């Protein structure tokens, strides 16, 4: 997030697109409700009807995968009416003319044809966003999990820059992170192309710095993303996989394809809390300590790095992940020993990460944590990014044309399928389905289907529905609801016995970010068995 949770409450307008915030980030949704109480206008855009849509001033349901067109249509109308922030654009951005040339084609009428959102609503959204500022834009995986994920994100940045909403209180471009430490895992260099703090592996000076600190020669060749690794397992370039705290067998696209890839490995090591679907097929399983059984830090969506404290001893012989890595490393001939524990590891990392974490320490974090960038020990942390201009220099507009998703419904596969989370469960369900109170909320998977479609196919509530895509077939009980538009289905991703990723595609991903298009697949359905 460029801005912070507290800051959301000072927004004049909140625009939530591709985020089911009340279900997936309930305590962030609280901020939206509070902002609304203070008079902020709320716009919600989502192909499904969500709870947030009920409280919005304006709620639209654009067709799956049509985000770029919707945002371009809003920007077209903003420029047409002269609502854009001309001083801000002149002083702090570049590329406006090129973008405006592309936007000229996206009239509300044309965008209505692509997105299914009435032109009058597009015009109203544009007016609210541009004239009730500062406007905070919020998004989640509904924006990113597309073949055009990068285009979608850039379009969100375009509209924020257009109305002068980057670097100001109550504004910003605010992705809501789906996992407790996804921000931290990225910040720590858990990516194939960067070390900590996004220092590129392709920069010889950076490689030399880390090489010197770690006492080993390092490769300057960027590695493979998870998407590339799966292809490489299939053709034999990857022979061993070490998986920590992740259940790719359920979470990755195209179950059959992935199964085939994992089967070809010479060695699969899985480090886990539970015997997950992925751990079950491992050669070696290493039991890890849970959040309550160790010390360390997590970094949240608003870049806040906070402490976790060890409350109890690990169960059985489980060890903290850092201790397991130290043992593996030592056995591989590179002794790793941190008698000072996680604090000593943090200090080593901070010293190598000058721009963002260098000024942080356990002593400074206290109970509230610190928000990066925090470059020096006397720096208070940074609640809002880009306040003195964008970090890269002028804010860059990108001219982006709309493209269809990789798969659109056709005669053979006439339904749109989208996937996501529901409120009581988390991701592949390994942590929540074994929790008594959460399991009681939702015990089984389901597929949401519109009443018109259900009626036509003679599907009643609870009937087992067979869903087939070009990749495979699975079954789930029907939940009949007008929360999905006619011709659309929704599957939650938490349930191994109704695996949504049996249907999704491993070939449809964003060319730059390599993020799979979990949000759009084409499927056909049939009643499998009455309830």
């Amino acid at each position, binding site marked *: 997030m460029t801005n912070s949770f507290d800051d959301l409450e000072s927004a004049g307008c909140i625009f939530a697109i591709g985020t089911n915030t009340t279900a997936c980030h309930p305590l962030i949704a609280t901020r939206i409700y509070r902002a609304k109480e203070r008079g902020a206008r709320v716009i919600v855009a989502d192909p499904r009807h969500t709870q947030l849509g009920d409280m919005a001033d304006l709620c639209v349901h654009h067709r799956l995968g049509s985000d770029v067109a919707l945002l371009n249509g809003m920007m077209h109308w903003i420029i047409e009416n002269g609502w854009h922030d001309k001083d801000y654009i002149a002083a702090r951005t570049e590329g406006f003319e090129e973008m405006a040339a592309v936007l000229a084609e996206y009239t509300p009428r044309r965008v209505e044809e692509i997105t299914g959102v009435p032109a009058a609503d597009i015009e109203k959204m544009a007016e609210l966003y541009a004239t009730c500022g500062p406007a905070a834009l919020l998004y989640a995986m509904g924006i990113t999990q597309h073949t055009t994920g990068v285009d979608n994100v850039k379009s969100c940045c375009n509209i924020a820059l257009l109305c002068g909403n980057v670097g100001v209180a109550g504004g910003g471009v605010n992705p809501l992170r789906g996992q407790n*430490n996804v921000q931290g895992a990225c910040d720590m260099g858990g990516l194939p192309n960067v070390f900590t703090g996004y220092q590129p592996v392709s920069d010889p000076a950076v490689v030399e710095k880390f090489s010197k600190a770690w006492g080993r020669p390092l490769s300057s060749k960027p590695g493979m993303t998870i998407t590339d690794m799966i292809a490489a397992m299939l053709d034999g370039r990857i022979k061993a996989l070490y998986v920590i705290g992740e259940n790719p067998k359920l*979470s990755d696209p195209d179950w059959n394809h992935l199964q085939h890839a994992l089967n070809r490995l010479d060695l699969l090591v899985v480090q886990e809390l539970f015997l997950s679907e992925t751990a079950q097929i491992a050669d070696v399983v290493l039991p890890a300590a849970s959040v309550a059984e160790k010390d360390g830090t997590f970094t949240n969506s608003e870049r806040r790095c906070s402490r976790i404290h060890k409350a109890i001893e690990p169960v059985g012989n489980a060890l903290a992940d850092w201790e397991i890595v130290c043992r593996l490393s030592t056995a*591989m001939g590179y002794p790793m020993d941190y008698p000072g524990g996680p604090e000593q590891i943090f200090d080593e990392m901070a010293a190598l990460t000058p721009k963002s974490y260098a000024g942080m320490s356990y002593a400074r974090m206290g109970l509230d944590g610190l928000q990066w960038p925090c470059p020096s020990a006397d720096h208070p942390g940074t609640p809002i990014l880009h306040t003195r201009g964008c970090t890269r220099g002028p804010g860059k507009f990108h001219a982006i044309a709309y493209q269809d998703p990789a798969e659109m419904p056709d005669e053979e596969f006439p339904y749109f399928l989208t996937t996501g989370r529901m409120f009581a469960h988390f991701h592949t369900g390994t942590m929540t389905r074994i929790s008594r109170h959460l399991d009681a909320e939702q015990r089984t998977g389901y597929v949401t289907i519109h009443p018109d479609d259900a009626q036509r196919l003679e599907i009643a509530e609870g009937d087992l529905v067979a869903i087939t895509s070009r990749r495979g077939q699975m079954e789930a009980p029907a939940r009949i609801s007008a929360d999905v538009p006619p011709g659309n289905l929704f599957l939650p991703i938490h349930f191994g016995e109704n695996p949504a990723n049996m249907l999704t595609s491993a070939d449809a991903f964003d060319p730059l970010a390599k993020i799979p298009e979990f949000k759009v697949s084409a499927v056909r359905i049939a009643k499998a068995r009455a309830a």
Partner: protein
Amino acid sequence: MDLKFVPSICSYCGTGCGVLFEVLDGELVGTLPMKTHPVNHGKLCIKGWNLHEHVNSPLRLKHPLVKTFGRFTKVDWDKAIGVATDRLKAVIAAHGPDSVGILVSAKMTNEENYLAQKFARAVIGTNNVDHCARL
């Protein structure tokens, strides 16, 4: 009776709510919202309130496991680390360091992510490091 409240952060979504683990005589018995925390101001969602339940699950893995002839055997740490590293070394010797992939985790701490990518880059010798950010 020894009752203590240990401050921590919820390990579900990316909001990062402050929690207090309620520990009674060394046992984790509950999760409470941290009233003063700047993220959640004393509130939690249903997952947060039940955070301790996954920690206490009887299904938690308690011993390292090694698979031989299709079946898992409980082993001690030295054995598990020995098997994993012997086989990793064999793969690297035969196919080079770039034949190894490492998936670090958006569920573990910053310190652990830092060490895991250091392990990949300095010990294995590959940049094939990624995690579930895209999923």
